């Protein structure tokens, strides 16, 4: 693999790993407090 190939691979792997970790951290840390049980699994039409 050429140095340009390595560079492309590192850039794209970096972007994807960053986005995955960042979005999951955000997803877990901002999860709402537990909602009342009656509202948890079902919703009225």
């Amino acid at each position, binding site marked *: 693999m050429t140095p340009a*190939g390595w560079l492309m691979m590192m850039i794209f792997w970096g972007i994807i790993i960053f986005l*995955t970790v960042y979005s999951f951290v955000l997803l877990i840390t901002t999860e709402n407090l537990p909602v009342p049980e009656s509202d948890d699994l079902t919703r009225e*039409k």
Partner: protein
Amino acid sequence: MKRERWASRVGLVLAFAGNAVGLGNFLRFPVQAAKNGGGAFMIPYLFAFLLLGIPLMWIEWTIGRYGGKYGHGTTPGMFDKLWNKPISKYIGALGVVIPLLIGSYYLYVMSWSLGFAFYALKGTLTSLTTHEQINAFLQGYQGVVQNQYFHSIWPAYTFYLIAFLLTMYVVSRGVVKGIELLAKIAMPTLFLFAFFLMIRVLTLGTPDPINHPDWNINLGLGYLWNPNIEYLKNGKTWIAAAGQIFFTLSLGIGVLQCYASYLKEKEDIVVAGLATASTNEFAEVILGGTIAVPAAVAFFGPELVKTGGAFDLGFKTLPLVLGKLPYGWLFATLWFLLLFLAGVTSGVALSQPLVAFLEDEFDLPKRKAALIVAIALFALGQPIIFLFKHGVLDEIDFWIGTVGLAFFATLEVFIFNFAFGTSKGWEELHRGASMKLPKIFYYIMRYVTPLFLTGIFIYWLATDAASKFVMKGVDPADRPYILAARIAIVLVYAIIAVLIHIAWNKKHQKEA
């Protein structure tokens, strides 16, 4: 009537990712990248992700959650709420027809990976040493020919039944106890298998140092990543990248909207959408890009990968590669189980829209709806299996799985932007969001994404559809079967349209 909701955020993201991560992540992506400029392909791929993929994904999540608020789990009801015109629900019918028709053949294709996992575990698959042998094995398995490996299609049919029953069982258990639970088990297992295979491929070194000292894993990775900038001047590279993004994120099918209808009203769809897309890209670029193509190049050189398609790479070349390794049967089994897990989570997703349609619009109980869907998928699947050699599967895949998706997505973005209104949609997208998107995405969603989609749709129509429509190159003996497949597509659409008509008439009578 009460509708289910996803039980947890991680569970819902895994379920959405399970829908998106499919066979294409591990097979289609590396072949597309290698054939379209290697590392240079990633530049249009990134553009397509930002301008088409992620905006359309957010649009579909928004439409889904908005429809779910009114008790609609599929696009007929959702489009009716977005655009109060009689035609809107019949456009939305495509969001039920497309997953149903794709599901009818996808379950069969996905069952091949289960069958191949079985034959890999048994040692049969890895005992094959040439392309001629594995080609004969695959053709025998598919029932195209009878040979020393298979005398009939029944082994393949048995695996189809197992895969089919498993999918229907999961669907019948509902969103939380079925789909979400499956995703929580299947997705981590899939990632574990993929990591294991990735490490094995990266440690291959130079498999044949005497005859081919230059064929090694470094060459394989370079084949995929060395940028050939010349390709960027070719429009086909840009279309190929956009097509890949479109397929990999499972856009324009109707499943994302259906899954999103089970979100809480204030779920953070900006972040959840981003997490789903990132998980999918992780599976595609990092794992998918490091297994099949680099391994195939290290063993057989770059020429073979250049000439073969994605399916050949996964089902023919890779078993040969893995068969050459110590404990090859184990790696081959893991490879096909990985494909099966990727397939089953997508197969379940394709079955869900019709279940939701029957539950929401006809007030049918979950199990009864799942039974009807199972009967419909089974009935549609039979001619596809038994008439496989006449090209029925390819025909439905082209009109529904390629052109149909782009057509549906194009109509959808126009309805979202110009009937519902981008401002209202933007507000709806941010309801409950913990971060606000840069305003530029507003303009991308409103102007760039519709233009991009229209361009892809017209390109696909102009380049392939005309020759496909007049059955250019089709054996005259196969033409009646191809024609029957087209009639079946129209009939399925007509049946769903009639069902929509009946459901809405009932609703009006109730309201009156």
